């Protein structure tokens, strides 16, 4: 427990019986915004939302599938690290207006270190002269010590059989785990891994007093959360296609607001004087984003049914959502289990003008030959000719006389030394390779490999702690 912590809620003991005795069922509209849809998301649309959005709460969703594994590594190297790198910058930017306007902040920026993230947020609040600020943080998603060598993975092998260095494992917590934090009336709620839609379902459950087993209404809330969780992806981001899907003001894309009703139906919109667009097409695309069976979308809260959802344009940049269904929540938690993935080495060099593609292809063959013959490397190596065939090269679609191309080589290396060999070989093409090669760049990225597993709910113990600034 960090300095200044005043109380502890043990969620495990209260289980699903947490009552809303102090929360009368509400009949008003709850205004919920999204301030980030991924760790590197833009800051200015979030600031705009807390300033002008008349929001009740704003969610910052900043953890990708593998981000948390990297955060575990950061924490292992330094116990004061392991939270989202942009945490301090985001809090500094949004806290003043959020506090002034009564906007509750909900975020998974705690990543592998929610307690440290809470301390940093408290320190930022103090520096900004904000007083009486309560920060709640939720832990218990880290199940690294509960997972063992014999734990079976969905992919068919055990942890031990993966044969790679084990980094850690985390459970996707649900809205349940956040209820004590909401009941504490915290201004800021910081978590590690929570299922993305649950970050949105939690404030709605708390506000409207939704029962934890009303599957239809939790299904509706989950649709709202799912639509909102990628921020600008529902307001015209990841969408524009000039001439087909034109989006005005993409450089100043506004982030979304959901105006949610007590029955879980909602209107998705954005602020006036922001770029982007909310229309039936942007909402449809986001509804199925990263969805498999639309009638069975599983979260720790519910098995939501998206197949019956109605999407209706009611005004410019206003789309009404209704009709979602739901069924009982899964009995176990989903885990992500992370392993050392070695290093990804990438290096490139460009060729242009007549014969450019042939020169780039010759250069690529040189790299392949030397990695095998000179360095005896059998690490997986890929050679792309960007401008002729790269992203879709595997399908066999290929141009054959491109005049402005880039050779890109990529290698999965087990060590930094092996990764450096690829960079060296591509750089050596400057003097030893085909004519006219320029613009060498190379980089080495540590990588992780993740698999999935299940864990019974009784083995996962979410807990909430409070810091007062």
């Amino acid at each position, binding site marked *: 427990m960090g300095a200044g912590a005043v109380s502890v809620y043990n969620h495990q003991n209260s289980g699903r019986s947490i009552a809303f005795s102090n929360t009368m069922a509400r009949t008003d509209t709850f205004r919920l915004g999204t301030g980030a849809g991924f760790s590197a998301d833009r800051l200015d649309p979030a600031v705009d939302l807390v300033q002008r959005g008349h929001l009740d709460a704003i969610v910052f969703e900043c953890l990708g599938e593998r981000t948390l594994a990297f955060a575990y590594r950061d924490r292992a190297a330094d116990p004061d690290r392991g939270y989202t790198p942009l945490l301090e910058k985001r809090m500094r930017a949004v806290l003043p207006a959020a506090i002034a306007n009564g906007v509750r902040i909900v975020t998974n920026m705690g990543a592998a270190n929610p307690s440290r993230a809470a301390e940093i947020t408290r320190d930022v609040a103090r520096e900004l002269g904000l007083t009486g600020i309560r920060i709640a943080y939720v832990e218990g998603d880290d199940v690294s010590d509960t997972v063992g060598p014999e734990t079976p993975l969905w992919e068919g092998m055990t942890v031990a059989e993966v044969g790679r260095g084990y980094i850690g494992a985390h459970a996707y917590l649900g809205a349940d785990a956040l209820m004590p934090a909401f009941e504490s009336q915290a201004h800021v709620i910081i978590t590690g891994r929570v299922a993305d839609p649950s970050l949105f379902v939690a404030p709605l459950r708390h506000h409207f007093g939704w029962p934890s087993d009303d599957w239809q209404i939790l299904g509706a809330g989950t649709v709202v959360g799912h639509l909102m969780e990628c921020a600008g992806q529902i307001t015209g981001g990841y969408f524009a296609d000039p001439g087909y899907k034109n989006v005005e003001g993409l450089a100043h894309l506004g982030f979304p607001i959901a105006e949610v009703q007590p029955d879980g139906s909602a209107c998705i919109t954005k602020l006036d004087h922001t770029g982007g667009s909310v229309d039936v097409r942007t909402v449809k695309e986001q509804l199925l984003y*990263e969805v498999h069976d639309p009638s069975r979308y599983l979260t720790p809260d519910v098995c939501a049914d998206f197949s019956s959802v109605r999407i209706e344009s009611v005004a410019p940049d206003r789309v009404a959502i209704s009709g979602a269904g739901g069924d009982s929540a899964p009995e176990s938690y989903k885990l992500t289990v992370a392993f050392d993935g070695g290093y990804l080495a990438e290096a490139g060099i460009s060729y242009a003008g007549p014969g450019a593609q042939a020169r780039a292809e010759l250069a690529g063959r040189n790299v392949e030959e030397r990695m095998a013959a000179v360095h005896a490397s059998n690490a997986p190596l890929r050679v792309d000719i960007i401008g002729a065939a790269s992203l879709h090269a595997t399908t066999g679609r290929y141009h054959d006389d491109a005049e402005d191309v880039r050779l890109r080589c990529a290698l999965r290396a087990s060590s930094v030394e092996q990764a450096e060999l690829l960079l060296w070989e591509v750089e050596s093409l400057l003097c030893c390779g085909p004519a006219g090669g320029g613009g060498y760049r190379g980089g080495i990225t540590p990588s992780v490999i993740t698999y999935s597993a299940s864990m019974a709910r009784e083995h996962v113990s979410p807990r909430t702690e409070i810091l007062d600034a």
Partner: protein
Amino acid sequence: MSRRVLLREIAHARSGDKGNCSNVSVFVYDADHFNAVAEQLTGTLLKHHFGALLTGEITRYELSNLHGLNFVMQNALEGGVNESLNLDGHGKSWSSLILGLEIEIQ
């Protein structure tokens, strides 16, 4: 009189990923085109054109109320973002691959 058009002319699409599984949703702009697209744009057609990339099972879900199809393609990301050496390890551009197919419409 029927004519062949690029799917891109009559539909829009979005790609997502989970591990080594890609999903691409496709929605027609005009409901009148839904039947033609639903009839022709099948997992078999995707396998025929992109079989070297889409190496696993393809399941198609129909959302007739939204005039959309959702393709869930196993082993379609060259190992997935963890292991793929593709620049686009998430398969974000797989939607554009599918929009480049031809569909016959009335």
